């Protein structure tokens, strides 16, 4: 029996089972994950928003396929649907909403809004997810190393964390864009939107990791004093083994929660940076550049103005609520 298996059994409440021998069914041992899932199932709001999040992920994955099949058509111009005399507003009022274009057409180009928003979700989520992964990986490694090794390593990493957190983030993302996008292009990424996208993902990750690192460091500081780590050490386990097999399994809960909460933050960040002129640019749609374009028509084409904003807000809201729900469900202090 391996050490991890034994740990898991400790966690599953073997002790409870032996104590409650009178009524086995009522006091059956449950793992923390089972408890969390049971708590989640009782939390209706979290279940609903998780459903929406899963649905939007499915849509995001399907969108490129549907575009290739011709079901979604985000890039064809429809000059016949817009009126050049009004500065390119859709001809029939109400944003040009019709059966062919359920959310209307884009002023100025006549492109299908629904297709662009759906594909925008794909691109925005890809950016947000990649940045989240980088953030979580960097933060976890830094936090694990700092918390476990302690001493000078901890001091050094903690000071770097303080420093990165003291930089004005939005400003740095904006100011570094010119130079770093050139560097990324020179490194072999195709110029234009691929480089812009890689830049956004990289800098969001590079400026985002300290928060995760702090949280993980705090957790590791208390975990490393626990008996199972001591046991592993005395059995001669290497640091790598302790990191990945002993500590990491105990960090999944906070990582899952903060990872979920990073997604909406990065979806919003992509939008804000688009507004400032940094990031993936049209014709490739992202929720950020759609919203940035749509605010030009705030007064003249209200539906076009509202759809991208509502999409962003819905996604952000659902991810945030899901993160909160996960946190409540995974919190060992919560009522069982």
């Amino acid at each position, binding site marked *: 029996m391996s050490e991890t298996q034994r740990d898991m059994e400790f966690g599953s409440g073997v002790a409870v089972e032996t104590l409650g021998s009178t009524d086995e069914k009522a006091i059956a041992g449950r793992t923390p994950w089972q408890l969390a899932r049971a708590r989640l199932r009782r939390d209706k709001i979290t279940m609903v928003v998780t459903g929406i999040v899963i649905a939007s992920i499915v849509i995001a994955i399907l969108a490129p396929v549907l575009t290739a099949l011709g079901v979604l058509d985000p890039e064809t111009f429809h000059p016949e649907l817009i009126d050049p005399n009004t500065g390119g507003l859709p001809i029939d009022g109400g944003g040009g909403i019709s059966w062919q274009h359920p959310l209307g057409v884009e002023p100025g180009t006549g492109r299908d809004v629904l297709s662009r928003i759906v594909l925008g979700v794909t691109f925005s989520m890809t950016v947000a997810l990649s940045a989240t992964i980088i953030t979580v990986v960097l933060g976890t490694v830094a936090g694990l190393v700092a918390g476990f090794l302690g001493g000078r390593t901890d001091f050094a990493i903690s*000071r770097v964390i*303080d*420093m990165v*957190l*003291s*930089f*004005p983030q*939005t*400003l*740095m993302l*904006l*100011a*570094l*864009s*010119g*130079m770093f996008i*050139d*560097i990324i292009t*020179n490194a072999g990424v195709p110029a234009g939107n691929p480089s812009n996208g890689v830049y956004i993902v990289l800098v969001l990750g590079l400026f985002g990791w300290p928060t995760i690192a702090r949280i993980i460091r705090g957790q590791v500081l208390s975990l490393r004093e626990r008996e199972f780590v001591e046991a592993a050490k005395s059995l001669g386990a290497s640091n790598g083994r302790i990191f990945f097999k002993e500590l990491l399994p105990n960090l999944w809960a906070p990582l899952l929660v903060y990872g979920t909460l990073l997604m*909406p933050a990065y979806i*919003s960040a992509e*939008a*804000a940076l688009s*507004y*400032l*002129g940094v990031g993936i640019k049209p014709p490739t749609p992202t929720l950020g550049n759609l*919203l*940035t374009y749509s*605010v030009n028509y*705030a*007064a003249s084409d209200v539906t076009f103005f509202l759809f991208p*904003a509502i999409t*962003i*807000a*819905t996604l*952000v*809201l659902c991810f*945030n*609520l899901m993160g909160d729900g996960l946190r409540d469900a995974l919190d060992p202090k919560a009522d069982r």
Partner: protein
Amino acid sequence: MFAYVVRRIFVGVIMLFVMSLVTYLLFFAAPSDPARYTCGKNCSPELIEQNRKALGYDKPVLVQYGEFVKGVFVGREFPDDPELKKSAPETIASCPAPCLGYSPLQSATVTSLIAEAAPISISLAFMAFLMWMVFGISGGIIAALYKGRFADRALVGSALVVYSFPTFFIGLSLYIFVAIKWQLTPIPVYTPISEGGVGAWLSGLFLPSLTLALIYIAGYIRLTRAFVLESMGEDYIRTARAKGLPQRQIMGKHTMRAALTPIATVAGLDLGALLAGAIITETVFNYNGLGKLAVQAATTYDLPTTVGIVLVAAAFIITANIIVDVLYAVIDPRVKYS
């Protein structure tokens, strides 16, 4: 306590030095040529070379950084050339301490650019701060008092919704609909107190600071609610109730004191970060504060200005950190630094 404060300030100053070095290297040691960005579209090879010399970009980057630091403390001149100063003093731009560099694109010292923009950002930050503290905290307290009831749900729900929209969407909606289309407020233009008096200053600040405040109010409602609920569950609150203290005293004195202490910390840090400019809000309302200056500098590759603003912002953040930590010991008797 005194020793603690001194130590924190010392560490803060060291951190600012390291950050200035990192920032300087990030922007000036990149493979692109900083001199190329000094003259915008009118660049001729001669002009580039002239600017390179005048601004000291021909020297190794660490020497440049040394001159930059020297400039902060004793000031410097561009170009630093005593002979030229004798023959043609009008060609020299002097930059008195604290000199954060010289922007050839704007033909001004970075310090003067920042000094011009700072009052706007600081006014905006303080107005927004007032709004979000008043409405955020009272909203959070109401939500906590009526936990699970309609008021709580309405407050927390609307906070969550507002929190989900991007700042620039909220700002532009307010600007386009409230100010322009419905004309409920005057179109916001920043007027210094010296020019239009307090009234014009306040009315110019209203919509931008409301935009900024809305996002923070949403956050603070949730934060305050959580802290108040947490302290309402403490044992000493039960004790206070058990010994028969009136509800008002329990809430006003025992609960709030414990709940608002951590909020003071968060608020201090948020304000510190905001003093260096609200980039999005200032861009939306076309306010020439530090945020707008930063956007302008970043998009025109005005490296000296960019570095200057980054450092000023970092200084604000570091200072806010120190003040908050020290303040924490004052308002929370349980915290003792040694």
